[in-house]
């Protein structure tokens, strides 16, 4: 294996050393339970307070509007079920999109089986919702709009400010899954009129198994995990102190380095897109050309299949991801690629490469050199390619 080039930052990120350093004392020395009133407990409680403060700052929220969870999926489940059940006397209608993460989609489907109605908004070929369709979907029984900030597969960023303003005007709660956006885009919950927001530490160089839900003061929501009085009685369970400490540090770092992070990942992304588009035929870039996450590249290569592409790249030390059905063992390719109107055939040949802070220019050069060869080799094997290649070169 020549090189190891990790280009799957949207799946998860390596933790930064600074984050680990802050976490380390909390495993074996400062190991107290914040519910305890003795010295060990107070030390732990203080660590949680510091982290909560850092997160609040990173999103323009107040400290007591930030609630730690066991990850982004738990935050999504909590927000949606919590709002649904706490406000069901007001209405039973929820609006979301067809391209949400499964943590949102499957939660909505669960609610549909339990007396709620859900509208799934379409997106255009770039993955953008239509604000008019959203407006028209609102009824007097709508209690929640849950709409992702940025898509995890194709990177498309939605017009969150407009959506927030609309929700506010109509008096409907607005939740956004910002798991992919947080740390990649500047977010101010007040400016954007966000009522609830899910985020996850392991996407921003923090630890896995920690997330948070922002809940605007005054929002009526049920708990998902009942029990002890942690998180101001809203989310039970002994706090994951090292995880929370790490999340706080990661959020702080993300804010401090946001500009360089964006310019670094954007320039490598653009280089990668340009390099591949110049060298490979029959390829398209999925997602929005401009309103997209700085580190997200999503190609659809015709005539080949995503898993074989991933495996071949993996043999060269390049780690990517795909929306192909064959990768997941499910029947259909990614619901996101279907929603933007790709044919099954083309969706199968999709490849997501996501760039992060540790990605180097030479990594991108390596991919630009190797990926076209891999595509070519697989196309030579493909019965679909036969038909066109005569007229190609």
């Amino acid at each position, binding site marked *: 294996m020549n090189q190891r080039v990790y280009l799957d930052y949207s799946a998860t990120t390596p933790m930064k050393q600074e984050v680990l350093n802050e976490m380390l004392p909390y495993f074996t020395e400062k190991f107290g339970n914040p519910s305890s009133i003795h010295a060990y407990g107070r030390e732990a409680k203080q660590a949680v307070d510091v982290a909560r403060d850092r997160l609040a700052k990173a999103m323009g929220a107040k400290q007591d509007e930030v609630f730690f969870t066991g990850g982004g999926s738990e935050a999504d489940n909590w927000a949606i079920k919590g709002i649904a059940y706490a406000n069901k006397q007001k209405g039973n209608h929820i609006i979301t999109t067809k391209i949400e993460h499964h943590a949102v989609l499957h939660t909505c489907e669960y609610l549909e089986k339990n007396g709620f109605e859900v509208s799934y908004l379409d997106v255009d070929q770039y993955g953008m919702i239509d604000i008019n369709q959203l407006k028209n979907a609102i009824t007097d029984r709508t209690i929640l709009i849950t709409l992702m900030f940025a898509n995890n597969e194709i990177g498309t960023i939605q017009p969150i400010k407009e959506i927030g303003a609309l929700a506010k005007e109509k008096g409907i709660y607005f939740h956004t899954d910002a798991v992919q956006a947080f740390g990649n885009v500047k977010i101010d919950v007040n400016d954007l009129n966000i009522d609830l927001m899910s985020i996850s530490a392991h996407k921003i160089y923090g630890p896995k198994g920690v997330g948070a839900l922002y809940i605007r003061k005054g929002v009526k929501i049920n708990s998902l995990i009942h029990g002890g009085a942690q998180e101001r009685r809203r989310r039970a369970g002994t706090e994951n102190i090292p995880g929370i400490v790490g999340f706080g540090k990661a959020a702080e770092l993300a804010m401090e380095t946001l500009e360089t992070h964006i310019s670094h990942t954007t320039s490598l992304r653009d280089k990668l897109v340009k390099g591949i588009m110049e060298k490979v035929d029959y390829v398209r870039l999925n997602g929005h050309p401009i309103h997209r996450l700085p580190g997200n590249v999503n190609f659809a290569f015709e005539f080949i*299949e995503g898993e*074989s592409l991933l*495996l071949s790249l993996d*043999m060269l030390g390049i780690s990517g991801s795909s929306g192909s059905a*064959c990768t997941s063992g*499910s029947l259909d390719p990614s619901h996101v690629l279907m929603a933007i109107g790709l044919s099954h*055939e083309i969706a199968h040949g999709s490849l997501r490469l996501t760039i992060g802070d540790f990605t180097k220019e030479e990594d991108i050069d390596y991919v630009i050199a190797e990926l076209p060869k891999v595509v070519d080799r697989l196309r030579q*094997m493909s019965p679909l390619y036969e038909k066109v290649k005569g007229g190609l070169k």
Partner: protein
Amino acid sequence: MYSEKVMDHFMNPRNVGEIENADGVGQVGNVKCGDIMKMYLKIENDIIVDVKFKTFGCGSAIATSSIATEMIKGKTVQDALKLTNKAVVEALDGLPAQKVHCSVLAEQAVKAALFDYSKKQNIVLEGLEDFNPDEDHHDHEEDHE
């Protein structure tokens, strides 16, 4: 995830390509499900003297096509007809549960090519009486828990 054998056949697939004026050509699978296998046979005196394939599909689809061509090359038509997906999986030292259906595709591709051969030759091959080359053999439902 995949055995070394699978990875070997995936990275260095045997018998990739086409045969001009093949004696039998079979294609199975469909684009919708993400896999198509096409098999070309050259048959002399009831012996498969050459075989080539082309596959659009996952690593397992490519590896099963490759090993299937190896397993039938030099065999009689009758022996080739006996190739089962189980034998293909065993020859590859196993496949993940949700990938077993790819091996079914390999078995079907061989049968489809032999069926085409029998039609061209105007003969009836034992075991292929009811073969329908257009049937959808792709089944992802094997085991998803």
